[in-house]
């Protein structure tokens, strides 16, 4: 508790002394003096995956200077991106076969949204879409199936080659990730304390991918974000897990020989013990 209090005090100081938080690409026309500022920090900025890793729980603390009644806060944590392929199972000769692959590029391996209220209650659809806030607005782009066309006189419309089916593929990505608790949405997950202080829990499941995570805090007023603050955290393999992973990828041949050597020694020991008995 003491630590939390010190942390929040430090945060307020940071918010007061720090320059304006970085501008939003789609924010309203920049006012000379920002209406509000956010400071935020995580209780840990490095999460280590060791042999006993079974997930982790962190708290994002922050202070919003200029928070008015009716304002809302949304916290979005995005994990490292990877390319994934989504396939639909089809029955061929009585057997379910993976078919019709769609490749999505740079999909976040982890995506968590926490907010003071359900997103739709305080934010406009376009603000959520532009800032990729909410499970329906996760960035899922599949350049291989997309074309940019002019339709009905509107330039730059993204059209999918596979038509409406792309919607099923997108929701399949979110559904599958949500099943492993990698994609989560927590309306009410941001708790506003007095004086513009707030906190949100960030739960990392056991399947958490390693890499850099960005936590963005948005302050919403009248449907649009008026301030945003980014803080990062890193999930790393540590200790023996790290050493093993690094050797396996950097010295794969030596690793394979080592694995065989260990197995041979184990088998030989077993036969020695067997003989003695």
């Amino acid at each position, binding site marked *: 508790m003491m630590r939390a209090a010190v942390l929040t005090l430090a945060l307020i100081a940071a918010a007061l002394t720090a320059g304006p938080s970085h501008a939003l690409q789609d924010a309203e026309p920049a006012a000379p003096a920002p209406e509000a500022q956010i400071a935020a920090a995580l209780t840990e900025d490095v999460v280590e995956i060791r042999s*006993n890793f079974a997930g982790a729980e962190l708290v994002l603390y922050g202070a919003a200077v200029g928070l008015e009644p009716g304002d809302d806060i949304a916290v979005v944590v995005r994990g490292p991106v*990877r390319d994934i392929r989504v396939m*639909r*199972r089809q029955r061929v000769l009585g057997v*379910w076969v993976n078919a019709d692959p769609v*490749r999505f590029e740079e999909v976040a391996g982890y995506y968590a949204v926490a907010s003071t209220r359900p997103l739709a209650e305080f934010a406009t659809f376009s603000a959520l879409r532009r800032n990729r806030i909410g499970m329906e607005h996760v960035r899922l782009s599949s350049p291989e199936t997309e074309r940019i066309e002019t339709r009905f006189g509107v330039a730059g419309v993204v059209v999918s080659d596979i038509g409406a089916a792309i919607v099923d593929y997108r929701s399949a*990505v979110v559904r599958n990730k949500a099943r492993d608790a990698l994609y989560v949405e927590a309306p009410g997950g941001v708790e506003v304390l007095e004086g513009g202080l707030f906190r949100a829990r960030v739960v990392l499941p056991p399947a958490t991918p390693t890499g850099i995570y960005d936590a963005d805090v948005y302050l919403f007023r009248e449907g649009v974000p008026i301030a945003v603050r980014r803080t990062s955290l890193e999930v790393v393999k540590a200790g023996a*897990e790290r050493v093993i992973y690094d050797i*396996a990828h950097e010295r794969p041949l030596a690793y394979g020989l080592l694995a065989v050597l260990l197995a041979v020694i*184990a088998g030989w020991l077993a036969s020695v013990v067997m003989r003695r008995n």
Partner: protein
Amino acid sequence: MLIYLPIAEVSLNLFVLLALGLGVGFLSGLFGVGGGFLMTPILMFMGVPPAVAVSTQINQIVASSMSGAIAHFRRRSLDVKMGLILIIGGAFGSVAGVQIFALVQATGQIELVIALCYVGFLGVIGALMLVESVGAIVRRSRASAPPRPRRRKRTFIDTLPFKTRFAVSGLYMSVIPPLALGFLVGVLAALMGVGGGFVAVPAMIYLLRMPTNVVIGTSLFQILFVTALTTVLHAAQNQTVDIVLAAILIVGGVVGAQIGARYGQKVRAEELRAGLALIVVAVCLKLAWDLAAEPSDLYVLIEVRGP
């Protein structure tokens, strides 16, 4: 207690893994099989990626075949010359199998191919074993003599060239059939994460007509080298050998095999074979059911490996 597996990148319960290693080790000691055909599917059911399950299980078989091969080497119950020819075939098969694995994985069908291989091989071999062992039990209860072996006929195998003498087995035959058998076993090892004894042993007895007393030892001798090579190849090419998982499985497997081997001496051979056949058929049916049953989610996510 959960343990994080660095290559599989999943957290699994350490005690469950140890118990599994123990259980499969027990069965392998009891029946004299490697147990890869049980462990690889179980690991996949538990959420270990197929590529990691196959290559890690292969690493475990190195340990179990090592202790078995040493015992047979001491008793001189193995045909080294035959074993070496099988290993040469197996080396080519293993290299081919690892390439096939990488290719199939790139198309997103690896789970299907592994499952189909299992259903095919386990179905045929389980059914044959079941018929044979039940037949033996029935004959024994009727107290009739086993059918007299028919006189050996000249087969296709006898017409092949490159003949050589296998002194230990007392055979004079072409090197092509053992090379081909070794190749097949190598492919199976790389693709299915099994030692391949369940294919090699019947093939050696019925096709190569090797004497039964050297078959098991020779098979283990070959399995040891082929699985060692396959482990190195999978590690080098796909980085899918999880040394932590392998170590846990080896510990459980070694202890379980001891218990199983001791228990096995009290049970009659026909009942043992029938029991093994039932397990093989059950695993086959389970995998076949999973292939045919409607999946809970029609879509699958496959991470694109590499940068």
